[in-house]
């Protein structure tokens, strides 16, 4: 988000507006943490004594557990709050919840919320010194997911310039797509495509620097990277799509379709996957898939972002 671009990195609310240098620093820092996972002792004391709250207003398994693990590997104390199931149901406002938690002197909030702009809203209301990291706000951004996708791409391709990348699926409702578009464009991807039926491609998405494809086979032609998106259950039937089966027939990632991409193309997916809806098992479990690798990279990327935001690594304060 803009706030980050203008000030020393305090919150990590979105990728939009961050410089290529900042994104590269996150990727470089994450690279340093990647080896940790295979060590016997997986902890570093960078955030010892800090309290981090996972504040999730929407259910999540993967993102929350990787944030949880990342924080623990940085030696922080972690509090996991599934707010969906607790106080806001009783009519407590978002701000009341926030202030109650703040009274416990937490250092960082990892926030997921169903409304776009919620992370920015929370960041605008926390005490000075408290950090906010966006773990997904509505359809807006999911910046740590985008950074882990970029880290995965860089590991395999070694660069961003000259790559062709296709993001496939429900672009309209996807925060992963928006953050991914900002990150990949900033890092130098010129041929960035979004692929999906008209009902799932939002108006004006071209202005973010992407080209729109409605035919999957054409959208995958010659690309280096395919980013699949999860299709939410509630979109599979109704006025957006007739059925999961028809979606699979037209937009499912099958081996035949993936073969249209470059032979060494990789297939990313943020998970959890719907087998036989947006992706066929043969692709999801095949040699080109990076889906499981992304989970591990996700921990390193989240460690990098948390430590940078807490100021435990110098240098991210690009405009300070």
């Amino acid at each position, binding site marked *: 988000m803009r706030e980050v671009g203008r000030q020393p990195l305090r919150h990590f609310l979105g990728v939009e507006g961050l410089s290529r240098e900042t994104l590269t620093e996150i990727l470089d820092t994450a690279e340093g943490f990647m080896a940790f996972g295979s060590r016997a002792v997986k902890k570093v004391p960078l955030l010892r004594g800090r309290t981090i709250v996972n504040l999730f207003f929407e259910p999540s398994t993967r993102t929350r557990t990787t944030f949880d693990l990342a924080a623990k590997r940085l030696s922080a104390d972690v509090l996991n709050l599934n707010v969906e199931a607790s106080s806001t149901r009783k009519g407590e406002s978002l701000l009341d919840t926030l202030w109650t938690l703040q009274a416990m002197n937490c250092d960082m909030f990892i926030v997921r919320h169903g409304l776009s*702009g919620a992370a920015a809203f929370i960041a605008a209301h926390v005490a000075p010194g408290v950090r906010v990291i966006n773990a997904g706000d509505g359809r807006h951004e999911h910046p740590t997911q985008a950074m882990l996708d970029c880290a995965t791409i860089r590991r395999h391709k070694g660069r961003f310039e000259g790559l062709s990348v296709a993001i496939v699926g429900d672009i309209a409702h996807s925060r992963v797509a928006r953050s991914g578009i900002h990150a990949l464009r900033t890092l130098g991807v010129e041929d960035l495509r979004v692929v999906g039926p008209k009902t799932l491609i939002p108006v004006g998405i071209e202005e973010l620097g992407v080209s729109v494809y409605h035919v999957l086979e054409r959208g995958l032609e010659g690309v280096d990277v395919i980013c699949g998106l999860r299709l939410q259950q509630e979109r599979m039937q109704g006025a957006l799509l007739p059925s999961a089966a028809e979606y699979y027939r037209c937009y499912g990632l099958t081996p035949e379709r993936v073969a249209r991409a470059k032979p060494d193309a990789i297939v990313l997916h943020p998970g959890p996957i719907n087998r036989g809806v947006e992706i066929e098992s043969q692709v999801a479990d095949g040699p080109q898939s990076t889906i499981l690798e992304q989970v591990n990279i996700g921990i390193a990327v989240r460690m990098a972002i948390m430590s940078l935001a807490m100021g435990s690594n110098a240098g991210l304060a690009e405009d300070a």
Partner: protein
Amino acid sequence: MNRLISIRGGRVVDPANGIDRLLDLHLVDGRIASLGAAPAGAGGAEEIDASGCLVMPGVVDLSVRTCEPGAEHKATIASELAAAARAGVTTICIPPDTRPILDTPAVVELIHARTEAAALARVVCLGALTRKLEGAVLAEMAALAHIGCVGVSNARAPIESTAVQRRAFEYAANFGLTVFIQAEDPWLAAEGAAHEGAVATRLGIPGIPETAETIALARDLLLIEQTGVRAHFGRLSTAQGVRLVTAARRRGLRVTSDVSLQHLELTEHDLEGYCVHRHLRPPLRSRADRDGLRRGVARGLIDAICSDHEPQDRDAKAAPFAASEPGASALETLLPLTLSLVREGVLPLGMAVAALTSRPAGILGLPVGHLGVGAPADVCVFDPAVEWVVSAASLVSNGKNSPFLGRTVSGAVRCTLLGGRVVYHS
């Protein structure tokens, strides 16, 4: 002869009477007595110095929500009429979405009583078109008209059934009532909170397409044609909507329209950073739409400019964008920002003042909005040289939810007279 008030040395702008020149304006017994020379035999004059100022009819605002009855923790009739007086607004029209809904004479009586107690502006009400605004059963329109409602409206609650819409229009036409419409198709608007376009896409805010307005408009226009009802479309937000209303007028339909100043001033691009004070309904739209609305006012195709004033308290706005309540505290910025558009060459002065005074008065069927001899002496003396900053502290309204917070505004009201009585003086 009774007390004389002379407003001296100002530039009198009275589009309804074709006047725009330096003149003294004289008021006697709460009415306009003469322009130029003081009326014969008048004595004991009170003088108001208007040198360097515009002297114009008090503003007639077609849409002001006072939050009373129903949400007095946000604002009251007394608090908002004080804001109106400060804003040079001497007549306001209240839409029927009060709590309880303005569908019985009792609610109108309560509003009239509070208005008389405040004695700071004239207040007229729109009665509900359907009971509880539910779009199912017609409201008792004859009773509402009898108690003084100047028209009927379903406010921002769209009537889903075209059959009910048709009968409601017919019934309103039967009593010669104007139907006030804010056109929005409920299915296309759905859970949207911003104009469907590149900005909403980037910010991830669910969109409201242009067609939410134009489809509802087109449907309503056909029913207006069929039923012969007189109709007013409030808060147009799209250039295409202006074209539809204009085309209908050309084929002889009795339709008028207005736009909020916010929609003449701001666009979807002003939502950056999820500015909740710019969460409006209808939403702020594209630059092309804003320019189309501006042209519409400049050419007289849009009749009136209103504030669409809607005070909100902090809690109502303290939420992520889509969960915040829409609405702007806008009474006090209406006149200065409209006249800024004149200074920028966007609107001709006469057209702008007419859109704030005589033309909305005509839509409401009221004898105000002009400075003709014998008219009620509702006068606004506006000093274009004063600069002020819009802030929670500088707004008189209880609603601090201005979309223009922090902006330096040129021009402020020096003096407002209601029926010849000074209700505000800076």
